[in-house]
């Protein structure tokens, strides 16, 4: 996605669907958190999401198997966080 402001829940669902993931309310809570953090200019890490109170790190792996931060940021329509943690 080029412009994060064009993001909608439907676009997110479509992108996730291509990867075989059906988005639930919990998924959307994570996506909204990522979008809010990104718009504040924060550097996102998996640890921050784990401390967000939405889901712990284990839960995040279950929501987005094989790429907790990679896939969630993709569906949230934000750039992949440039962080090693």
């Amino acid at each position: 996605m080029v412009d994060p402001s064009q993001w909608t829940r439907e676009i997110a669902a479509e992108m996730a669907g291509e990867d075989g993931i059906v988005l639930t309310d919990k998924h959307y809570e994570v996506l909204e958190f990522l979008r809010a953090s990104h718009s504040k200019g924060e550097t996102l890490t998996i640890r921050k999401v784990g401390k967000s109170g939405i889901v712990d790190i284990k839960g995040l792996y279950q929501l987005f198997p094989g790429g907790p931060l990679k896939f969630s940021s993709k569906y949230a329509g934000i750039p992949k966080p440039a962080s090693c943690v």
Partner: protein
Amino acid sequence: MTTNTEKPLKKVCIICSKGTIEDVYATLIMANGAVMEGIEAKVFFTFFGLDAITKKQMNRLKTATVGNPAMRAPGGLPFPTILGILPGVEAGVSAMMKSQMEKLDVPPVDEFLEMITAGGGEIYACKMAMDMFKLEKKDLWEEVKDVLTVGEFYAMCGGENTQIIFT
């Protein structure tokens, strides 16, 4: 356009043999980075690396302040080795390293290991080094999956697109 024929990495087996902050964190960052990308990670701690998974030591790791020419004082000033031998210098430098990492959201060792196992990474201890240091399973962090011989660890490192990394 050329076709990319590279096969993506599927598994990394990381061996950590040293117990300084930077050696252990290199291991933890690589292991966590792997599971975050969907790459299987198995980590084997041996010799002084065992400190990273020993309950008593895991959050008390230090950086060596002697014999490390790449270590400089803040601002890039030289840090002569002779200063490194003074009492408290190693503790001070180590505390500074940890606070700098915390600023980058890099967690303490125990929390970092939890992040790795939360992603399906597996943590192992070396049997020979445990015997040598007179350590028992109960001395280790609870989520250490097993104590292995090197042969048993190698047996887990099979499969296509697997790499062994030694730190």
